[in-house]
């Protein structure tokens, strides 16, 4: 199996342009990146690739990011270990409360500030416990 030492990141966004921008930034910083375009694909990739961190868009067709987050958290083996950052245009008190309730660790407000994104990715990865 091909697993490099850098922690991998799963980017979930139904908008291809957004996903590509984020992928380009993170890959340029040396992180292996996987991209999913909807919730079902995200869950399948989550299960197969076991990424260390997930960047998850809230507004997606069919399954919302909230639902995907909740499902990932319930994964019996990997649900606790993963760090989940929500990408959202909504950042009022109650939006953050909902993010908490679904089990997210952090959030990034849209439009995305790439410097902020990198900072948040790094500070969350710093809390990932390394394991086999």
């Amino acid at each position: 199996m091909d697993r490099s030492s850098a922690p991998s990141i799963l980017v979930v966004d139904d908008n291809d342009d957004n996903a590509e921008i984020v992928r380009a930034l993170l890959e340029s910083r040396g992180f292996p990146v996987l991209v999913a375009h909807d919730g079902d694909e995200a869950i399948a990739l989550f299960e197969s690739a076991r990424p260390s961190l997930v960047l998850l868009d809230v507004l997606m067709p069919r399954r919302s990011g909230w639902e995907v987050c909740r499902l990932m958290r319930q994964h019996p083996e990997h649900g606790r270990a993963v760090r989940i950052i929500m990408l959202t245009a909504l950042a009022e008190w109650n939006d953050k409360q909902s993010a908490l309730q679904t089990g997210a660790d952090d959030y990034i407000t849209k439009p995305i500030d790439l410097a902020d994104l990198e900072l948040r990715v790094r500070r969350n990865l710093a809390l990932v416990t390394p394991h086999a």
Partner: protein
Amino acid sequence: MTTAPRAFLLTDSADGALAEAAEILQMDIVRVNPASELPASIDAHASVRVIVVSTDNPSLLRSIVEHAGARGIPVVLAGENDIAYRRAIEFRVDDWYLAPATPVEISWRIRSALARVAAQTIGPTHRVDRAEYEEMLYDPLTGMATLPVVLERTRGLIKDRGEVIIHYLNFVRYSKIEEIYGWEKLDQVLETTASAVREFLDSRSLTTTRMMVGFPNDDDFIFLQIPDKGQPMPTDAQITEAGRQLQSFVGNRLEEVHGEDVSSLFDIFIGSAHVYYTPKIRFERLIYRGVREAANAARSVEQRERVRRTATLKGVLHEGSVYIDFHPIVLSESGDIFGYEALARGVPRNLRSPEVMFEVAAEADLVWELSRLCRARALAGAKELLRGEQLLFLNVDPHDFADPGFGVLDSIDPRRIVLEITERTAIKDYPKFRERLRSFRERGFRFAVDDAGSGYAGLGSIANLEPDFIKLDISLINSIDTNFIKQNLVETMVGFAKEQGAMVIAEGIERSEELETVKRIGVPLVQGFLLHHPARAGAMAGVHAGRQ
């Protein structure tokens, strides 16, 4: 054991881990080589239970899924890479895993595929998405199998024995734990509970088969007890006694792991139903009917306990048997004690938790009486405890303000008292309530909003009460060091409090990392087991005198 032929597992894979998985599942394994023979083999073998495929040929995979689907046999894909996963979704195989995998993981996948197919025959006919199935089959938290899985596994045993006892374990007030401490804490408590229940059952050398069943995302468990052939079924008295022992076993374990405040919230009520197998009634219906019956039995046990508890509370009020634990609130920079929160506890063990005691009082319409008793005790204790500028934090219910006896204090200066109002209680008539607060404020009382930030209400409702102190909800503090959303919310609250001229209190500090984080954010006051445990006034005064 019956002598029927063992179920077959058909595969094109030579993986040794798969052979071990088959052993775990007590299945025989039949290898087919080349893989292109698989579709024909499916049709040829009558007792094939499951197919594990490793081929990377898409058209062959499609053909295998079609043949298997026609006979209702689940297919599990052993993939090597991401492409295999996409195929798994595309062709709708029943489950998949990434090779190499451990035998246990493979057996888990095969079980879930088997159960998924079984569930389809009894469940809704439309196909539910994969992730939701997973939730249905295994409770993600406790790892317990859910009912469709267990039915599949025990069907033969129950038919053989002819009867089964279904035990329904109703865990009450777990929702309260979630309300007070947040869902992370509840998750931990559920895990502890599940492992304690399992340990309890394992430690008892019953010559029976026991199957634990979890309900996904719910607090209740059931377990099926099927005595081995030749063993007598347990009597009702034995079942009741086992339930009692289980309750104290789990209660003690919760206290060890999570402390008395959490364990005293805990209750378990067990109901049982005896189900006799009859071929005339569909097996699933028989079992589900038994589960309902057992659940009803558990509920009636709960009702009896409730009546008993109300009687205990009346005794407490009559004898005045409550005591107060004082929990220090300290300045986060210096560690000096700023004040004490009074926690009223009932002397009888089942009323030890203030939450439970007030819940029982509310049901019995005795809140005023209980509040008066608790306040009188708290004020008496505070008189000997408070030094210098220290304050007494008293929990009050909005209804207390309507009590004509409330606020008549001759023993203590109102300026030393902070009344804590919880954000959780719905205040119906805001203008009237604020009017009442104003009259208390004029007499020198101060106010704290308790459990702030627990809901979605935002900061507006807090501003409405013009508090002097804002006590953050425990759920915002638990693991705040690793959750950046909590940090952000608390930062927001600290800024808001400054504007309002209020001080923020972080309660529920249990770890030094949590303390460091709230200090860094600028929370001026802290409270929690890491700093001090709640204690009686006498003990507290002694400790602090000794420290000076």
